[in-house]
């Protein structure tokens, strides 16, 4: 599914040796230089790259260890994909309590980035549902960590970007569902205030909420978009649509990015008007609901040979309305737009990891075709706003924030650095912390 030793944004390009890890009982391979665990390569920037070093590709550690269909506790090796787990547990009435926007991530990767989903305001991050994990260090030692057992190592490893050692296995607590269907409701909002209003009024009744924002629109329509909220549907919903059966794929990388101001303007406008009513209801299979982009294999190729840059930030509640408005203005004014602009209110649960990204506030995710300096300058401008508002930028999606900003966003970085395995490092970490 993913290219070898690349990140999902296909930027930056790194040269590294790849070693497959298939046996969790073996000690780590001895190599010259530093190593970094690599799951399925779905991090966007350079947090999953190790330029000049070695990647320990963990996808071969893909065995289940134990699944109790009565309690929903699943113990498995860290290289298993969420998609495999879904195939196994959904028919048995279980679901991951937290899922990111793609199901092609490994369990180890989900822990190491402490990923979040559309239900953050209800369930918090992925790491909050990890009952325990085993950490294998380069000195050959193994440590089972949990919120009770070596809690400091647990807090360092959850969201620890793979730097504290190799996660070999983990036990997850799944949650009950009645079936694979989702009841969804999509509401149109005409400006940013509309988004904040809906977040307050609708979120309480729905486990999953997220909004798509038209980031080409300016003026009165700044921040207009579609607010989608959903719950797991009862076992027999009124409508049973067929399970999805799409196998589209981007077969090659076009010579130039297909995302440009023209296609963006057209797409954003069409998408905003895709439903006639202001409120639309639907029953949907969980796959297209949670993973619309997984339906198109290698969709990252549409951005052409230079790849793209994701930008996801969070702005704390007190500064959210003003901060998000400023961010959207900068993006709209730049004319670069963003194909996928996503807004979501995080909940108030404290995240379990020292370097976890989710924190109370409003999060905005954007992506931009990589146009070199021009894109970097734009993202620096966004950083100025986020930093001034006391927010943070998501390392899993970053390829460019400067070290000073990172250290401001993640004040625990110094305490965290004592937990880093001396033989582990990443392109990201060398960029922001050294």
């Amino acid at each position, binding site marked *: 599914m993913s290219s070898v030793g690349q990140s999902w944004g296909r930027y930056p390009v790194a040269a590294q040796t790849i070693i497959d890890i298939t046996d969790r009982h073996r000690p780590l391979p001895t190599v010259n230089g530093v190593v970094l665990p690599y799951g399925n390569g779905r991090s966007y920037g350079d947090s999953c790259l190790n330029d000049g070093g070695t990647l320990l590709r963990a996808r071969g550690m893909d065995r289940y260890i134990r699944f109790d269909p009565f309690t929903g506790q699943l113990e*498995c090796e860290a290289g298993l994909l969420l998609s495999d787990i879904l195939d196994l547990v959904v028919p048995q009435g279980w679901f991951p309590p937290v899922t990111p926007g793609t199901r092609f991530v490994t369990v180890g990767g989900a822990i190491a980035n402490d990923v979040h989903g559309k239900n953050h305001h209800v369930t918090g991050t992925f790491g909050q549902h990890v009952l325990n994990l085993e950490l294998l260090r380069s000195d050959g030692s193994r440590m089972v960590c949990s919120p009770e057992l070596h809690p400091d190592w647990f807090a360092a490893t959850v969201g620890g970007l793979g730097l504290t050692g190799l996660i070999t296995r983990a036990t997850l607590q799944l949650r009950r569902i009645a079936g694979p269907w989702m009841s969804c409701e999509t509401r149109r909002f005409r400006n940013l205030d509309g988004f904040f209003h809906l977040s307050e009024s609708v979120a309480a009744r729905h486990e999953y909420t997220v909004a798509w924002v038209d980031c080409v629109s300016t003026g009165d329509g700044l921040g207009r978009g579609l607010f989608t909220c959903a719950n797991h549907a009862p076992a027999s919903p009124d409508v049973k649509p067929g399970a999805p059966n799409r196998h589209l794929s981007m077969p090659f990388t076009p010579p130039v990015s297909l995302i440009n101001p023209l296609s963006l303007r057209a797409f954003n406008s069409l998408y905003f008007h895709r439903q006639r009513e202001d409120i639309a209801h639907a029953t949907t299979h969980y796959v297209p609901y949670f993973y619309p982009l997984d339906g198109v294999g290698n969709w990252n190729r549409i951005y052409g040979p230079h790849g793209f840059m994701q930008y996801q930030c969070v702005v704390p509640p007190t500064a959210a309305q003003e901060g998000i408005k400023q961010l959207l203005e900068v993006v709209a004014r730049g004319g670069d737009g963003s194909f996928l602009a996503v807004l979501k209110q995080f909940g108030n649960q404290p995240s379990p990891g020292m370097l976890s990204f989710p924190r109370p506030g409003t999060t905005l995710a954007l992506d931009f075709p990589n146009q070199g300096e021009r894109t970097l300058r734009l993202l620096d401008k966004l950083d100025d706003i986020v930093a001034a508002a006391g927010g943070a930028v998501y390392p899993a999606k970053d390829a460019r924030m400067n070290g000073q900003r990172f250290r401001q966003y993640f004040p625990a970085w110094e305490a965290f650095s004592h937990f880093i395995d001396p033989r582990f490092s990443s392109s990201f970490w060398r960029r922001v912390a050294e």
Partner: protein
Amino acid sequence: MLRILIVGASSAIAEATARCYAARGARLFLIARQSQRLEDMASDLKVRGAADVAFATLDVNQLDAHGDVLSQAWTWLGEVDAMLVAHGTLPDQNACEASAELAVKEFNTNGTSTIALMTLAANRFEAQRHGTLAVISSVAGDRGRQSNYLYGSAKAAVTAFASGLRQRLTKVGVNVLTIKPGFVDTPMTRDFKKSALWAKPESIARSIVRAVDRGRSVVYLPWFWLPIMLIIRHVPEFVFKRIKL
């Protein structure tokens, strides 16, 4: 319920095949060298839906241990609906040219041991009068090539043996399936540069299960190796010996 026996169970193709059968609720008996790997696989396959999983360790080059292990498998499974013989190595051709001892050892692992196992298993299948004995040979066995003719010759022996055995056992209702994979992306081929011709073990495994279901005799996996090998087999010797493959 399907009863499945797999030799060389920890190889990538075998493990992927075992997962297909586990998802169907089969009962599986696994044979491989390392007990830890077998234990890991057994718990994995049970979560994936296998009715039950048992295993035994075996070094296939200890020919006198074959009978005992097969008898354990047949006792535990009752009867065997499909047996997959999947063990093997990829010998270093250059090293095999330098050492006759190594050449014979590799031939034994990839050829002799397989023939020995199939000989004993064939008699058990003949007695139960149904089932499929599937063996992983290779496209490399179709014609000896400079780059890996030691491996190729061992697989050629397996292919010829399986062909004869198929003629014999078809008459009592037992199918012998010869599987000829091309390049497969597994730990065994870790050091090769991969091209579009390379297949994933999961897709090979699905094809193996389908071939067993359909009672096929010989399958090339993926299918495009059939025309490729047809051409390679028919290149005249005076041309063949002058090129490098």
